[in-house]
């Protein structure tokens, strides 16, 4: 049997805080958290990036979606400690200063945001999709966004936004 190291000792049931080095949007942030802290709480409350939204807190609505090593992940049901050393991207990574990226612009053009609460999650799921599949069909988009709920039910314009962003003949709407 392997030697159990001090790091993993069970002695003392206290939940010790840990110092984590989190890589968020290409920057390394050192944060001190208890193991119970979710990735979402770390991003919003410890690092102060409040673009990622806190919705259902049970992994259903997708508002908290961030990219972990390029894959869409629900930050409300993922522990911060499990994500140390991984490449995490949030919605703040998309724009360059005040310049929105092509996908965000397309959401504006199509009216892809209504109340806007689901938008950060939608943008991150769409970003992951477009990185894997630059010309997704409407069906591909529906599939990729299955885990993101829009309570305003503005799905059609969100799908249109992604079709426009992937340059597939959908023209900006005159709003």
């Amino acid at each position, binding site marked *: 049997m392997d030697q*159990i190291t001090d*790091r993993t000792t069970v002695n003392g*049931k206290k939940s010790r805080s*840990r110092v984590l080095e989190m890589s968020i949007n290409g920057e390394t942030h050192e944060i001190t958290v208890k193991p119970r802290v979710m990735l979402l709480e770390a991003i919003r409350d410890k690092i102060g990036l409040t673009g990622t939204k806190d919705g259902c807190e*049970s992994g259903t609505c997708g508002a908290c979606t961030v990219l972990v090593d390029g894959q869409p992940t629900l930050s409300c049901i993922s522990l911060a400690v499990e994500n140390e050393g991984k490449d995490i991207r949030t919605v703040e990574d998309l724009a360059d200063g005040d310049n929105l990226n092509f996908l965000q612009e397309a959401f504006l053009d199509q009216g892809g945001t209504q109340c806007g609460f689901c938008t950060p999650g939608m943008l991150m*799921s769409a970003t992951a999709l477009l990185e894997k599949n630059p010309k997704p069909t409407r069906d591909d988009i529906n599939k990729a966004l299955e*885990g993101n709920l829009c309570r305003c039910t503005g799905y059609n314009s969100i799908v249109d936004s992604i079709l426009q962003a992937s340059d597939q003949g959908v023209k900006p709407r005159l709003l």
Partner: protein
Amino acid sequence: MQPLPNFQYLEPETIHEAAKLLMDSGTQSMVISGGTDMLPSMRQGIFSPDVVISLQAIPHLRDVEWDDTEGLKIGPLATLRSLETNAEILQHFPVIAEAAHAVGSPQLREMATVGGNICLDTRCYYYNQSENWQACDQECLKLGGETCKAAPSGRAKKCFAVFSADLAPVLVALDARITLLSARGERHVDLREFYTGDGAAPHVKAPDEILTSVLVPKQMAGIFGVYQKYRIRNSIDYPIAGVALTLRLNGPDKSAKKLVKDVCLVISGVASKPLVVKKIPPLLNGKALDDALIEEAALLAKKAALPLANTGGERAHRKQMIYEFTKKAFEQAINNGSQIS
């Protein structure tokens, strides 16, 4: 965000170290895999472990490998998404990819694991609720109360929470075998025998055991398989009725009269375990499928399903969906008949 209760978080680097830690830290410890079911349940106060043991740092637990003598070996930490795209799975057991794809949403599949799906806790309207909700009424049986609130009589001493995994019924139909490891030793269990049918204690894994491997036997490779899932929304939700079917159709290529061999039908979301419909193999093995036989099989499956009003959907409707899906699954098997042997 309401914080979770505090716990100690351990990251062993070998599976034996994990087993030792799990034993040493006693009954209030839990192993975390994808966390997609465990963490929401911790938020609701359903689980409140003092110690959470992560398997992430242990190498090779995510591996999916084809072994020419034994078959397909799936590591417990393999994500459902990784099964959907794995070349060995698509070649030998495409139905595993199909069932993995039916789970949750893209984000959930990216995180959720095979081990978690197999060991999934049963679900019920009276069980998966917040502590405040629970405090408004007498406790449900699974949370330490006297009787099951889901049972129509209100006096049942058995828990009727529903087993709601999509992948597990397919693995049962494929005769998968799992390995459980603890500091006391290792044992192999047929997945079919793993589930008890008791909602309060749905499987035979002891608290100090860790699921370390899933084996789908080589003999099952190439068998036809299909999984049909019914849920409220066409994404995210757990199944409220599911049908997994595996079978072989043997006979000459052009013949319409192919004979059924090795049939297995498992229904999910309508009982406290993935339910093997035991009357199906004696009814169908060695016979050629026709409409009357399929009708009889679908009625058997419908009869075996005993859903209660403790998850989405109306009971009679869910039973009917088991019937419809069973028919549809057999029809798919016939349509695919020309490609399988």
